[in-house]
């Protein structure tokens, strides 16, 4: 047996580059007209449609399997949510004030569920959970720093103390590889804590979007780690990054 040789550096495919460009361009152009959001849809879902009709063959069987499984998870999540929301709004006690926000909520739920499922399939539960937490912690760190500088300068003490809020997320990311089940339980506890702390009012759809983007990774990471259990060391772990859903 020989020593494993260096792995090849990951590079995005042409499909990913083109689709990502269309998505980014579409988002940017929505500042001119909201109809440009169609480009975002084309960039996000277009390659998948082309693969299903057999015009695009850029993914191998494992990647297609992971995509289809993630799509099934998104279908289940969105469907169940719809069957909760319909009686919620048709019970006669509530009404939908923001139909466009409701559409946005379902788009975010659909895409985010797909993304989380695909990432777990590609990276495995441990690596996916660790990366969620590193991204989360980094976002909290950046947010707390930005909110403490500039015109709303709050002093050096606040600038040094507030970023410490990110520390638990980095700590959990480190722990996830060593004690995955413990980390999973802590993530679920964090999910419950933030659920109470932010007092999400799910009658407001914007709160629903924030709930998905902020608490979704905590819930998904916690469940994934609890189910995955102890990590087996593997020096050949792939390190490929999925940027968009394409």
């Amino acid at each position: 047996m020989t020593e494993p040789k260096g792995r090849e550096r990951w590079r995005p495919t042409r499909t990913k580059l083109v689709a990502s460009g269309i998505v980014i361009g579409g988002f940017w152009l929505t500042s001119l007209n909201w109809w440009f959001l169609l480009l975002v849809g084309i960039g996000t879902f277009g390659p998948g449609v082309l693969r299903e009709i057999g015009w695009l063959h850029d993914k191998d069987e494992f990647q297609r399997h992971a995509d289809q499984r993630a799509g099934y998870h998104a279908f289940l999540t969105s469907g169940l949510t719809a069957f909760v929301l319909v009686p919620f709004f048709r019970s006669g006690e509530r009404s939908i004030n923001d139909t466009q926000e409701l559409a946005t909520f379902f788009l975010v739920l659909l895409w985010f569920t797909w993304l989380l499922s695909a990432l777990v399939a590609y990276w495995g539960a441990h690596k996916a959970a660790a990366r969620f937490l590193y991204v989360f912690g980094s976002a909290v760190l950046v947010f707390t720093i930005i909110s403490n500088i500039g015109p709303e300068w709050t002093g050096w003490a606040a600038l040094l103390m507030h970023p410490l809020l990110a520390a638990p997320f980095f700590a959990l990311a480190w722990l996830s590889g060593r004690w995955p089940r413990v980390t999973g339980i802590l993530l679920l506890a964090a999910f419950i804590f933030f659920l109470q702390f932010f007092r999400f009012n799910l009658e407001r759809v914007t709160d629903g979007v924030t709930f998905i983007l902020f608490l979704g990774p905590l819930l998904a990471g916690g469940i994934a780690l609890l189910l995955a259990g102890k990590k087996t060391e593997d020096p050949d772990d792939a390190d490929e990054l999925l940027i968009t859903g394409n």
Partner: protein
Amino acid sequence: MKSHHDIQTFVRRRRLLADMTQQELADRVGVTRQTILSIEKGKYTPSVALALCLAEVFDVSVESLFQLKKGENDD
């Protein structure tokens, strides 16, 4: 009672004996390295076509790469 089957894979062992990296094997059978990794870790069961390609690369039978592990509750 419904039976449950797990697949035991010997792809990694064969690959190391052949002094091959995951990327080299992936290139030989036309898939990504991630796919080979997932097969070796038992996270993904390849299609018949891919299993046959892998067997052809190592010049062995498919059964020497993948074996069935029957569950305890078989009929």
